[in-house]
C-alpha cells in the first residue's frame, strides 16, 4: 500500500502518511478538544474502523515533529479530576498541507476521463 504523497514541491521533504492525514483531520475536527481519546473516538466514528491509542499517539508525535500540529496544556475539566491536559491543535502549516492534499486529489479527480467509468 503506497500511502505516501509528496504534498508539494515547496514542502519537499514533508511527507504525510495516510494515517497521519487522518489523524490531522481528526485534530482539526476536534479543535479545542483534541487529545488521544477523542481523536481515537473521532476516527473510529468517522471511518468505522478500529484504531489503537498507540498508533494515534505515534502519529501525533510525528505530526508535532513536522510542525503540523502543536500541543498546549488546556484548561482543567471536572471530568479529569481537575487536572489540566495536553490538547493538540493543527497549525497553519498543518492546515495548508491538508488543503494541498485535497487540492491534488481534486485535481486528479478532475483529470479522470469520463470514459474510465464505463
Amino acid at each position, binding site marked *: 500500500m503506497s500511502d505516501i504523497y509528496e504534498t508539494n514541491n515547496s514542502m519537499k521533504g514533508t511527507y504525510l502518511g495516510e494515517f497521519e492525514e487522518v489523524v490531522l483531520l481528526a485534530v482539526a475536527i476536534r479543535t479545542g478538544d483534541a*487529545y*488521544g*481519546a*477523542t481523536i*481515537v*473516538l473521532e476516527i473510529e466514528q468517522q471511518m468505522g474502523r*478500529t484504531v*489503537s*491509542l*498507540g*498508533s494515534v*499517539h*505515534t502519529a501525533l*508525535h510525528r505530526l508535532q515533529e513536522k510542525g503540523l500540529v502543536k500541543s498546549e*496544556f488546556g484548561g482543567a475539566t471536572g*471530568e*479529569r479530576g481537575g*487536572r489540566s*491536559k*495536553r490538547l493538540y491543535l493543527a497549525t497553519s502549516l498543518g492546515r495548508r498541507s491538508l488543503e494541498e492534499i485535497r487540492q491534488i486529489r481534486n485535481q486528479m479527480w478532475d483529470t479522470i476521463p469520463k470514459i474510465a467509468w464505463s
Partner: protein
Amino acid sequence: MKQAKRDHPTPPAWATAILRMFCSAYLIDEFEDDLNQLFHERVRSVGIRRARWRYIEDVFSLLRPLLLRTKSSNSRNPSHIDMLRNYIKIAFRNLFKNSTYSAINIFGLSIGMTTAILVGLWVWDEISYNKYHGHYDRIPRVMQHQTYNGVTNTTIATPLPMRAALQNEHGSDFTYIVSSSWTRDYILAFGDKKLSRKGNCVEPDFPLMMSLKMLRGTAANFANPTSALLSESVAKALFGSEDPLNKIIRIDNKRHFKVVGVYEDLPYSTELREVTILLPWKFFLEEEPWVKRSETNWGNNSFLLLVQIAPNTDFAQINSKIRSIKARHAKEEARFDPQAFLHPMSKWHLYSEWENGLPVRGRIQYVWLFGLIGAFVLLLACINFMNLATARSQKRAKEVGVRKVVGSVRSQLIAQFFSESILIASIAAICALFLVQILLPFFNQIADKQIVFPWDSGKSWLLGLGFTVFTGLLAGSYPALYLSGFRPVKALRGTFQTGRFAALPRQALVVVQFTVSVTLVIGTVVVLRQIRHAKDRPVGFDRAGLVSVAINTTELQDHSRALLHELRQTGLALNAGKSSSPTSEVWSSDASFSWPGKDPDQLGDLGTVGVTHGYGQTVGWQLKQGRDFSNGFSTDNLGMVINESAARFMGLKNAVGTKIAWNNEQYTIIGVIGDVITGSPFMPIQPTVFMLKEDWASFIHIRLNPALGSRQALTRLESIFKRYNPGSPFEYRFASQEYALKFSTEERIGTLSTLFSSLAIFISCLGLLGLALYFAEQRQKEIGIRKVLGASVGTLWQMLSKDFLILVGIACLVAIPVAFTAMRHWLEQYTYRTDLSWWIFVVTILGALVVTILTVSVQAVKASLQNPVKILRDH
C-alpha cells in the same frame, strides 16, 4: 461505596501496571486519562469484555520505543534536578534581597576559609617536610642521650668511631652509613668569581642515600677525594651558562676540586636545604688534623652520622641493638650513660626537642596549635552563618509553611537549606581562592615558607570541593534542621512563636565565638609580652655598630694582626678583637675544669671562648669584679675572665684571684663580667670562661667608628679586607642582626597569632554586627512605639546592646581559665619568662566589651534615632 465500585466497571489493573512500569513518568498521566476515557466509552458502546480487550490492546500499542523514549519539553513532574534549580533560584533571590546579610555571610565565610586554606597549606608543608628524599621513611640519624650532673642531654653529635663500630658489628642492618661534617660556609672560586656558599663534607654514598637528582654528571664519580658536587643554583651562580662538568674550582682559597656533578636544589621544605656543596669526606679527614685524631676518640662528639636501614629491619630493632654501643667501646665514657638511638627523618622537623631523654614539644606543637586555630576561625565564620540564618528564620517561616502545605517533605526542605548554604559556601570559596592567591606571598614571608598553591593537582581541587561542601553542610546544618521542623499551620497563621528558649542555641554560639576569640587574644598578648620580656633582658654587651667577619682563609688568619692594627690606625674602628665564637654564642665547652671547693661528683662543664686583647672593649662587656685582659700583665696568658653565671656555678663569692685547673695548667681568675646572652634569650645563661687564645680565633669583631656613616665605613672595611684576604668575598654580619635572629621563631609565632586572633575577633564582630542589624530591624516597630511613649535614645541603645554585652561577658568568663591554663603551659618551656599578670586578662576583657559595644552601638543608635512616625506609618 463498595457496591458502587463493583457496579463501576474497571479496566484490567495489570495492564495499567505494565504501562506504569515502562512508560516515562510524565507521559503516564496523559496515557492513562486517554485509556480510561476510551474504556468507559467502549463499555457503553461494545460492552465490558470488548472494552477490556481493547484496553489491553491499547496499552501494548503504547509501548513503542518512540513514545517511551520521548522527552517532554514542558514536563509537569519535577525531578530532583528541577527542584535543585528551584532551590538555587530561591537562594539567589534571598541573597539579593538581603544583600547586607549576604555580604556579611560571604565575607565572613571567605575570610574563614582563606585562613583555613592558608593554615592547611602550612600544616601540609610542615608534615611533608623532607619527603623529597626517596628513602624518607628508611633514613634516620644516629643520636645520643648522655647524662651530666644529673641532667640528660640529647645531641645529634656523635663520635667518629661510632661509624666504624656500626659498620663492623651491625653492618647487615644498614644499607648505607654516612658520616658528615656540619654545614658551614665555604669559599668557592672559579676564575675571578668568588662565592661563599654552605655545604658539607660527606661520604660518597650520601647522594645515593638522599636520592639527589643528578642533573649533570653522576654521583658515582664523587668517590674521588678531589671531586665535588654542586647544587644547581651554585653551579649557575659560579659558571653561568657554561658547562660546569670537569671544571676545576678552588675552595677556601687553597684546595682544588673537580666538579663531577650537579644536583637539583633541595626544596625549601627539607632539613638539608642549606647543603649546596658536597665535598668528599676524605678531604675533611686529611685537611683537619683533629678529625683524623677523632677517628679513635669516643669522647669527641662532633660529627653527624646518617644511615639508611636495611629493608628487612626496623628502627625499634636496631635501637635495641645499638643502644649501649658507646658504653661498650669506651669505658671512660660509660659514666655519662651514653645511649645511642635512631631518629627517623620523618621526625627530624617536627619532633626535635628532648628533655631528660624524652622527646618533648618541637614544632609539632605549632602544627597542632595553628591547625586548631585555623579550624576555629572557620568555625567562627560558620557560626555567623548559622546565627544569621536562624535569626532570620521568622521571615522564612512562611516560605517553609507554604512549601510544606504544597507538599514538600522535611527532607526536601533540608535539601533546600543545604543547597542554599552550599551555594553561599561555594561563592565564599571562590572569593577565598582569590584571597589566598593574593595573600600567599605575604603569608610565606611571615611564616618563612615557600608554599605554592597546588593549582594543578586534581587531589587538591577534590579536597577543596570536599572542604567547601563540608563548610556548607557545617554552616547550614543548624538552619536546615531547625527551619525544616516548623509546623506549617502555625507558621502560616502567623502565631508562630520562637518561644523563650529559641534564642538559646544562638546565644550559645555567640558565647562560643567570643570564648575562642578572647582566648586567642589573651594568648597573643602573652606571646608578644614574652617576646618583649626577652628583648628587654639585659644583653650584656653593646650591639650598636658592632660588625663580625668570619676568619675563613689561612691568609686572613695569618694577617689578622696587621689587619686589626690598620683598622685601629685608620680610625675606621674604635676597637677590634678576635674570638672563637660569635658575640652571642658559645660554640665550645669543656667538662674538665676544677676549682677549689668543687664537689668531686660535679662535672666542671663550662663554656669556653678564646679571645684576644681588646675583645672585651670591642664588644663592650661589663666588668663586675677585677679587670679585663691587659697587655701590661704577661701573666694574663694564664688568666681567665668568667661570667657571673660561671661564678655562681662554681660557688665563688670573691672569684678574682681564684685558681682554676684546666688542661694541666693553673689559670687565675682576673675578672668577672656581667652575663652576656648566649644561645636562646629565653633560657638560662651558660657558665662561660674567656681565655687569651689567639690561635682559637675564628671571628674578627670590629666596633665601627660612629663618626663615619655605616655605608662609608663598610665600603672602607671591604677594601681593607679585600687587600688582606683576596681569596674571599667580603661578608660581614652586624651583631644586632645576629642577635635579632634569636627571636625569629618566637616572633613568627607572635605575628601569626596576632594575625589569627585579629581575624577571629573580626569575624566574631562581623557576626555580632549582623545580629544587631537584624534585631534592630525586627524591633523597629517596638522602638517606634517606645519612642512615642517617651523612651530616650540612651534607653533604647541600652535595650538593644545589653543582651550582646551579657553574652560577651559570659564568653570572657569562660575564656579566662582556658587561656590561663594554656598559656601557663606554653610559658613553662621558657626558663626566662614573663608572668601572667591579671591586667592582661582585664585589658583583654575590657577590649572585647568595648569592641562589642562599638559594633552593636552603630546599629542600636541608628535604630533609636529613626523617626517613629515614619516607622509606625509604614508598617
